[in-house]
């Protein structure tokens, strides 16, 4: 579920919203992009755009925001949705309010989107299909297989299945950049907490998360134009599955992109330098906004081809109170995921028998996978048989996994500076109050007249004390010298 992810951007919205306005204007020059972005909008925003799209060039209608408000029901829920829609539209600078309060639709968006809906204009935004029919055209089942094979290869690499090939340089860059994996002690890439979270997502979310990361890299490392890259993503989303498209019409950047995307399994080319390419299901469903359909479509198509049993989608794991785990799956990928936190015991034709042990869970925890992630994985992949009982997972197992996690954190260390030996309580309290207000204090004890501040707070507190001393000196107060001394900064001198 996309909602569960907060660690990394999976949402193309956020990515688009972050773009500066000129870039957005550039983007709206492609009809396919306009259509794709339109599809990504919430229903009410789509409704608003559609209502206003054809009004303006014919007869300039001036509507204010309050006029639009009359279109929605005067209910709290409806109004909330309305404001959300307006907010989204203005963030994407599709709809703006001008100085006199009238609603304006971005002119290039309006023109291109009209073109796109009416089929006007001459553009190659939706891909140019090949004129000559291909000799042996791959069928849809083949494309699905190709897509799944390439994509799962990336996932396999992430979970560290043995015998997987080293993926392409682009994939490596994306996974390390996105911190889905990081280098362990022996220079081996290991899966991280984020990477595990990534595996829990459905395919569509994964693909988008991956592409957004790729976008970041494309900008910085490969010096590709963000607009061209995004346009290409959105164009892929509007292509038709099973059709062939010509490479000729692409820009050089997009040709380079195509190589990488073919690697990820979003497109298929018979060989490098082939003049045509085929989008796969991963690509064509990018902007459909209906991720559930994608994953089930992909899994059902693979179920017939690779023998992946249909139960995989609904859940296949049974956990017993004795920490035994039975997973009814044949998928290597799922087994590899299980291996991250279970000890595999026996593998049968259609199921795997594993144990959840202290060591196996600790191993996962060391990689940064949290107890909650393990539990939510077990919950979301629970076998239908398990779902009949409440609570779904045996409480003993859940509690124990949490306990094992807590056990690792028995010792929390924070680097700090310890202030001590204040002359009197007043000075102590004054400095402590100052440091507390700035939020630097880690620990304090009035009786011992000691407190400790964080590393970054040390500078501030030291300067504060120096300032106070200087103040007292200028005030010429008799008690000045005896009050606060110069803090002895630096090396720990223990007496």
């Amino acid at each position, binding site marked *: 579920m996309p909602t569960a992810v907060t660690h990394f951007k999976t949402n193309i919205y956020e990515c688009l919203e972050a773009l500066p306005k000129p870039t957005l204007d550039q983007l709206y020059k492609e009809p396919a992009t306009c259509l794709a972005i339109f599809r990504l909008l919430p229903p009410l925003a789509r409704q608003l755009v559609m209502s206003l799209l054809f009004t303006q060039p014919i007869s300039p209608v001036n509507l204010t925001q309050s006029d639009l408000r009359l279109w929605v029901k005067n209910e709290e829920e409806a109004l909330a949705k309305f404001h959300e829609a307006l907010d989204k539209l203005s963030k994407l600078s599709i709809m703006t309010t001008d100085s006199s309060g009238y609603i304006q639709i971005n002119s290039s968006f309006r023109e291109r989107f009209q073109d796109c809906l009416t089929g006007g204009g001459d553009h190659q935004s939706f891909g140019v299909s090949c004129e000559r029919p291909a000799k042996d055209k791959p069928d849809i089942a083949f494309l699905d297989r190709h897509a799944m094979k390439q994509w799962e290869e990336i996932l396999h690499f992430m979970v560290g299945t043995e015998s997987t090939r080293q993926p392409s340089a682009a994939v490596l860059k994306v996974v390390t950049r996105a911190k889905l994996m990081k280098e362990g002690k022996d220079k081996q890439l290991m899966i991280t907490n984020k990477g595990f979270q990534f595996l829990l997502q459905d395919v569509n979310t994964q693909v988008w998360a991956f592409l957004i990361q790729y976008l970041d890299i494309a900008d910085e490392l490969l010096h590709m134009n963000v607009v061209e890259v995004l346009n290409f993503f959105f164009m892929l989303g509007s292509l038709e599955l099973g059709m062939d498209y010509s490479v000729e019409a692409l820009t050089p950047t997009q040709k380079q992109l195509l190589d990488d995307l073919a690697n990820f399994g979003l497109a298929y080319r018979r060989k490098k330098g082939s003049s045509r390419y085929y989008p796969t299901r991963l690509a064509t469903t990018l902007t459909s906004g209906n991720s559930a359909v994608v994953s089930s479509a992909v899994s059902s198509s693979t179920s017939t081809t690779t023998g992946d049993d249909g139960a995989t989608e609904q859940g296949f794991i049974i956990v017993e109170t004795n920490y035994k785990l039975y997973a009814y799956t044949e998928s290597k990928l799922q087994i590899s995921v299980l291996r991250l936190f279970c000890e595999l*015991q026996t*593998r049968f034709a259609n199921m795997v028998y594993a144990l959840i042990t202290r060591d196996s869970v600790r191993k996962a925890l060391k990689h940064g996978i949290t107890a909650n992630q393990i539990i939510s994985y077990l919950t979301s992949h629970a076998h239908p048989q398990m779902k009949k009982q409440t609570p779904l997972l045996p409480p003993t197992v859940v509690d124990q996994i949490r306990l094992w996690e807590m056990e690792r954190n028995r*010792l929390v260390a*924070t680097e*700090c500076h*310890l202030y*001590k030996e204040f002359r009197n309580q007043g000075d102590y309290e004054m400095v402590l109050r100052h440091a507390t207000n700035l939020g630097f204090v880690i620990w304090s004890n009035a009786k011992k007249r000691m407190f*400790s501040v964080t590393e970054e707070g040390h500078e501030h507190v030291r300067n504060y004390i120096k300032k106070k001393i200087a103040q007292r000196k200028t005030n010429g107060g008799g008690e000045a010298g005896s009050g606060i*001394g110069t803090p002895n900064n630096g090396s*720990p001198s223990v007496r």
Partner: protein
Amino acid sequence: MVKVLKGVIIKCDSTVKQVIYKLNERKQIIIEDLDDTHLFINEKELEEVKIEVEKLLEENTYKTDLPPPSDK
């Protein structure tokens, strides 16, 4: 005079605190005993403390004798 010391504050339960005291017998680690759950220690010793504590707690954990995994 105010004194400032640089080091590491460790927040732990009293069991771990005792373990660190044990280590302190061998080598000067603890700079200041703050309270029941806090210790102020020399930052150079932090890694060693972590490892030692882990080791000691590990020795005191009950493990079931599972049959060795049949396939690996």
